[in-house]
């Protein structure tokens, strides 16, 4: 797998270099970065919003924001794909709840291996997460998805499922911690 990752990284301009060119106002670099990650952003937004035209709005917003402030992402700190996925999900939930953005992009720092920008490594990590999801009970997985992709608050999930609020909080918290542990292993 290592060889595969090395081949990928040799074949393309590194993300950090593209971001540096974007800082200098290079529109071509922005187009290249878009081609590389637009599916990541669009897919995350579509998963939350379920409607292509709204997901397209989030896609525009996320990339325009990156164009205006490319320094918001610190390329020394992790994977750009992972960072964009987080920003896209947050913006999509903001759209869903029709609220002003709650997360400042500069506050989002991830402890993700930069190698995850390689598709093979990313696919492997995603596989590990899906395996953890498989081990969860239907109730826990459902609560996590409602919080994560439907933007429901813990209280709303408790109301919807008829479960006590404390149970919902515990289920979601332990699910997120299980995922964090799976990445560390």
């Amino acid at each position: 797998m290592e060889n595969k990752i090395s081949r990928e990284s040799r074949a393309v301009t590194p993300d950090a270099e593209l971001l540096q060119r974007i800082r200098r106002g290079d529109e071509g670099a922005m187009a290249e970065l878009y081609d590389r990650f637009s599916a990541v952003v669009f897919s995350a937004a579509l998963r939350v919003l379920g409607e292509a035209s709204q997901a397209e709005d989030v896609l525009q917003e996320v990339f325009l924001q990156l164009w205006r402030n490319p320094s918001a992402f610190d390329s020394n700190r992790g994977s750009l794909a992972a960072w964009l996925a987080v920003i896209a999900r947050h913006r999509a939930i903001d759209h869903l709840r029709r609220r002003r953005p709650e997360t400042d992009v500069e506050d989002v720092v991830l402890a993700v291996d930069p190698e995850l920008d390689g598709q093979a490594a990313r696919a492997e990590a995603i596989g590990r997460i899906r395996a953890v999801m498989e081990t969860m009970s239907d109730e826990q997985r459902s609560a996590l998805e409602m919080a994560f992709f439907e933007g429901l608050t813990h209280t709303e999930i408790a109301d919807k499922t008829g479960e006590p609020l404390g149970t919902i909080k515990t289920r979601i918290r332990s699910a997120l911690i299980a995922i964090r542990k799976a990445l560390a292993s």
Partner: protein
Amino acid sequence: MTGHETFADELTRYLLGELPPDERRSLEQHLGSCGECRNELERLRAGEALLTLAGSEAVAPPPRARARLLAAIAREPRLAVVHEGSRGRAWWIWAPSVATLALAIVVGLLWQENSDLREKAQKLAAMEMQQEVDTHNTKELLADLTAKGAIHVNLNESGADPQPHARATYNPKDGGIVFVASNLTPLPDGQAYQLWIVPMNDGKPIRAASFRPTSRGTAVVMKHDNLRTSPKMFAVTIEPEHGTGEPTYPALLSSPIGE
């Protein structure tokens, strides 16, 4: 339970935007001083990212989205959003000739206005007329100067290497600052130019703005910063990109006000 343990328990709710504002502020304050909690949050965020990727079916956006984004970018002014002291104020980086010429026009208009003032009998009418002319001229000027494809050049002494140069204007009435620089050398990642103002009263430099020049070595800073006194000096230093509280000497550029 110690404070630290309490915060560790809150991190997952913070991640999902579940914390009420007061608890959120309190946690953010704690994160500022607790490396362990910061690391835990970063690891949870990594899980959040991978869960987002894992839970989303890979779908390519429609081709029109790419064209739409590139058109939007082309319409954006050549802006470099940089770190600034007073939040909420926007400041821009344009070609230097925009602001230089705009300043020249403003000076010219002010001189004209003074002439009009001497004509006491026609004072009000002349000012009104002048304002109309100002508005018209400024609109035309800005349209030309910011037009896509407009050519901006700097003129230097023939044969001489272009040297870094800047001009700063401060309006004591409203604290407006216009700073125009050219021939600045590009800086490596992690560094930025920083504009300082040394006020007349205690002489302690105030950080006015941190900026990176355009690829042509030009930068324009426009902002408001009420000094409550007159500035004694402007200076530009090279600092870490996220700014610093004290200037690193020697300054690249410095000038007493009015020079």
